[in-house]
């Protein structure tokens, strides 16, 4: 290797290696554990209908809102039975991918 380049350290199985790190590795997103009560947008789109209210009891599999994306009316369902804790969006909102729309507990 030429010169006195500063290398970073990568730990593979407890051995520390001096090396360059790839952009992909350095920019990787930290892992977010899945919360079963979260209803998130799996695709960017527009909220065209919301069927539940905060405080309402709902059952697993119940459709909570419609996310219009790619010319499809996507029916987003709750993964759990429980109470609607918080609704973060209103009808007509445009949402990015992965936004937390409704929290159920």
């Amino acid at each position, binding site marked *: 290797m030429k010169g006195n380049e500063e290398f970073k350290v990568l730990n593979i199985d407890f051995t520390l290696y001096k090396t*360059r790190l*790839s952009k*992909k590795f350095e920019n990787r997103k930290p892992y977010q554990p899945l919360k079963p009560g979260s209803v998130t947008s799996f*695709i960017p789109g527009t909220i065209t209908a919301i069927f539940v209210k905060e405080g309402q009891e709902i059952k697993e599999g119940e459709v909570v809102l419609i996310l219009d*994306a790619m010319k499809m009316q996507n029916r987003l369902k709750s993964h759990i039975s429980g109470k609607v804790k918080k609704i973060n969006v209103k009808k007509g909102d445009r949402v990015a991918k992965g936004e937390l729309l409704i929290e159920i507990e």
Partner: protein
Amino acid sequence: MTIERKIHDLHERRRKALLGGGEKATEKQKTMGKLTARERIEALLDENTFHEYDMFVEHDARDFDMDKKSLPGDGVVVGTGTIFGAPVAIFAQDFTVAGGSLGIMHAKKITKIMDHALRMRIPLIGINDSGGARIQEGVNSLYGYGEIFFRNTLASGIIPQISVILGPCAGGAVYSPALTDFVFVVDKVSKMFITGPEVIKTVLGEEISMEDLGGARVHSEISGNAHFFAKSEEECFAQIKKLLTFIPWNNSRKARMFEPAEPKPEYEIGKIVSDDPSMPYDVRDIIRAVADNSDFLEIQEMYARNIVIGFGRLGGRTAGFIANQPAEMAGVLDVDSSDKAARFIRFCDAFNIPIITLVDVPGYLPGIDQEHAGVIRHGAKILYSYSEATVPKITVIIRKAYGGGYIAMASRHLRADFVFAWPTAEIAVMGPEGAANIIFRKEIAESENPEETRKKMVNEYKQKFANPYVAASKGYVDAVIEPAETREMLLHALEITENKHVSMPSKKHGIPPF
């Protein structure tokens, strides 16, 4: 008409055809910094060797007033010629004619030259510069793409197929290059994507420039779709020519032999690798220290840099090099590097190119993102490709070869023909630190000075296992060699394996973990 008049008439027809989309469109092409289709072909082929066919093909579309439009050659130039005296078939889309859009006759010209290339067993080069499907021709243009994709697949592994992206290549059109062996891109000129920035904006509300979405750099660095990146069309053509010197015309031939040449003296093989096993070095210096003329043509240089692939020669024979790169991500195997190496192994195997593998691998990259991205499935591709390959496989273990990485990197167990190891090699299940932590967990935890005990145990493990001799004692390594002996050992191994013949169990085809 007299013969003279008829010949004059032919000349007149040719002259018109050669104008392509006309002066205005040609000028526009130039202002975009692009050469015309025929200029590109001429720049790429040996002088005066291009022979054009189907110059007078015309479209027969009738809808949307297309019957009133004449499109010279239907927007694509096809023919044959030579590169360094070797025959090639070539097509180049002509952006000056209806934006190089693909209609049925355009596609038929391409599929005809593809059939020709396959029948004649000569390499096929496709220059892509097209706005996409010719919408006026409807499903007929889809027929055209499908027929091209089918032939790309038929020809795969029989003749080398090269795609050169010198303009837009969008929508379904991208799949022909994706099915070919090598994709060449030029900075600021090449644009490849399935859905363009406008559609992405309307459908998803995300804004991105064409360059950031599917420019040459993106495909060379991030997506891995491109294999060679050039700053200009001229540089790109030089790269294509050079690549063709390393590969054979077809799968029943070998690459042509060159005059053997010694490596350049500035690459001193004994001085590249540091004594400290955690210190990086550029593995390409080792390749250059063993290759004829120190000439190494790297492929996918910017993508998954933790593995290096490319062509060089030893004693005049082409070899495909695959090497872990300790300077990048410690040379780990991960999703991208596995894909990159596996595909290259299959190219070499299909085209009778011996594979030389240089090993310095700490293992697979740990991480949630890697596991979730399917490092199991992707990592398996390397195992599959090496196991399946029947070309000569020669392996040199430079330094560490740990665990699954050791097995994957063309180990004896995947039927390497020769496995050599440098005295610095450490062939073990894992690195000394990790191994000692596991084996001596109890001793370390229960001792009065755990840190000191741990060091002692790591040292003990190092002494015992961090060397090539345990593997050599089982015959998994054929010879432990000095770095300075590497080139000679490789030259000899290539000679010995020249007529290698193995037969694999007969089957329709395997199911690689795509």
